[in-house]
């Protein structure tokens, strides 16, 4: 796969078909629930005990490989502070996926997460894939939001749900993978609406990730 150019799918020579899809993913949630930590863990495998508060939004990319597809995530990690709330629509508009994060040790952040879900359902593209992440699961001793409660809410609203820990890396890659799997990657789905993956133009080649070597 390492030698296989990612543009292969568009070649008429009948080479192995590996689709490269690019998705826009946005992280939403109350301030200090661990959005940036989740992304940092996913993208760089790092964790900082004292992660600074995000200003505006952060942009990162990460590529994951599925069976027959390479998925490139364009990740928009938004700032959770209320004063940046008005910027959020700009980022989730046109996003194919969203991770709404809450802190399992803080009931308020769960309520805020529900509001984010509601807002996404109303304002974002109708086919957006929403995942709910209950972060800081390493602090289960101080748990304030029950797993079952969140699971029930997620089921009701058709959300992906996992409890994650950026500190221990628990479920971090899994939730991104689950999203990647759920995203429509067929060309038909891509053309139909905003939820579809964007095909890469020829000049825009994602780096082959290590898993595909």
């Amino acid at each position, binding site marked *: 796969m390492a030698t296989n150019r990612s543009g292969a799918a568009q070649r008429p020579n009948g080479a192995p078909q590996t689709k490269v899809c690019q998705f826009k993913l946005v992280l939403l949630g109350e301030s200090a629930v661990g959005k940036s930590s989740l992304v*940092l863990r996913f993208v760089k*495998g790092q964790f900082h005990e004292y992660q600074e508060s995000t200003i*505006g939004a952060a*942009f990162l990319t990460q590529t*994951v490989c599925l069976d027959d597809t390479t998925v490139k995530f364009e990740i928009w990690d938004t700032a959770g502070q209320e004063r940046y709330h008005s910027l959020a629509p700009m980022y989730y508009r046109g996003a194919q996926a969203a991770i709404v994060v809450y802190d399992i040790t803080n009931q308020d952040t769960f309520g805020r997460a529900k509001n984010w879900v509601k807002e996404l359902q109303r304002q974002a593209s109708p086919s957006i894939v929403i995942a709910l992440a209950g972060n800081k699961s390493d602090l289960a001793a101080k748990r304030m939001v029950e797993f079952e409660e969140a699971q029930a809410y997620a089921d009701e609203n058709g959300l992906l749900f996992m409890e994650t820990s950026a500190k221990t890396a628990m479920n971090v890659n899994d939730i991104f*993978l689950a999203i990647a799997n759920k995203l429509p990657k067929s060309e038909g789905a891509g053309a139909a609406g905003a939820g579809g993956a964007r*095909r890469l133009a020829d000049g825009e080649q994602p780096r082959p990730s290590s*898993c595909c070597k």
Partner: protein
Amino acid sequence: MATADEEKILEGFLCPICKADLKSASQLTSHFESLHQEEQDVLRSLKDIFGKAKKIILNNDDADLKETFDRALKFSYADYRDEEQSEGVSRSSSDYFKAVRSARLERYATETNKLLIRLDKLVCNMPSDPNQRKQYEQEIVPWLDGSSVKLCPNCAKAFNLTRRKHHCRLCGSILCHDCSLFLDINVARSIVDPSAPPTAAPADAEVTEKTGLRLCEHCYNLIELRKQVQESRNAKTVLMTAYEQMRSLMDQARPAVALYEKMCQSLFDGETTYNLSDVNAMRGRIGKLAEGIDLLSKQIASFPAEPGTRQFRLQNAIRQAAAHYIKEDLLSLRKLPTEAQIDEVRRQRYERAERQIQMERQKMEKERERLEDLAGPSGREREVANDNDDDNPLLEQMNIIRQYIKEAREEFKFEEVAILEANLKELKKEYHLQKLSNKC
């Protein structure tokens, strides 16, 4: 699986489309709204089309191509009709509009007020000497220092020997002569003090530096606007002027009618204060007034107005009131006696008076005879001496009064005539008594 990307993490107020860091939330919002709002939707559909087109060109799949273009270009409404369409969020912007407008109006109002205050200071106590005046003007409005101004800020022409720098007398800014406008000082006075009667300056006379204030276009426009507002507030409608004219005619008619009645009565009483021709002239005058009132009220009634509106009703009411007034007060005048009747009345009166005089004279004769018997004939001589006394002051006065009466009559001042006639009568009586006493 997922590995660390070597790319640097971008953070800040990033544009979701072009990833530029805009430094602040508001800048980001405006950047996004101005550059990317529409782009987002268009971009997506274009990408679809181009992606398809590329694939199809490579695969030579015509049917698929056609279908894709159809779908992309049609923007079919049918797709949307299925969904329940809600009206969406709407909000009233009138409050915002009002806020913006009132701020704007307030700015103009305060600016105009400032200019008016300055104008007021300028025009009152303005020295007539040009040098003093210049100094006075600068005291009230500090003039801009023009040393660094090389071009006229209005027309951008360079100042030189022939194009001198001038100053707006209200804001102190610099301008050239061609860009200056002049406000006549008399006009300025009437703007500052609306109660003063506006002195009508000859319209064709050019307002120059001597008779006017040099202003820049901006100040001139503000002042001019203010003047127009003032004028429009004081302006009378055609209807109002017509009504006022009518009222003044009515005011003239009322004393005229009263006087006519008096004159008429005095004629019937056989008094000689007024002539028949006097009274007739008076009647003619009242008739003319009535005619004028009638004409004006008809004019008022015929002003165009929507039937049923208050204005329409008012106009009709004015006309009716005027017609009523003319009929009741001006045309129902007492008929004048004929010449013969007057003569008859006068004759009777004269005879009555004669008889009375006769009686008095007889009484006096008797008295005198009684006195003469006592005093002898000495009194006769005195009477002769006094009889041809032409420069008797009483006679002189009576002549003057007669002259006055004649003049007053010519000018239709019948009230004066009446007063003068009464005066004349008194004089006559006095003279009579004097004569009698002289005889005695």
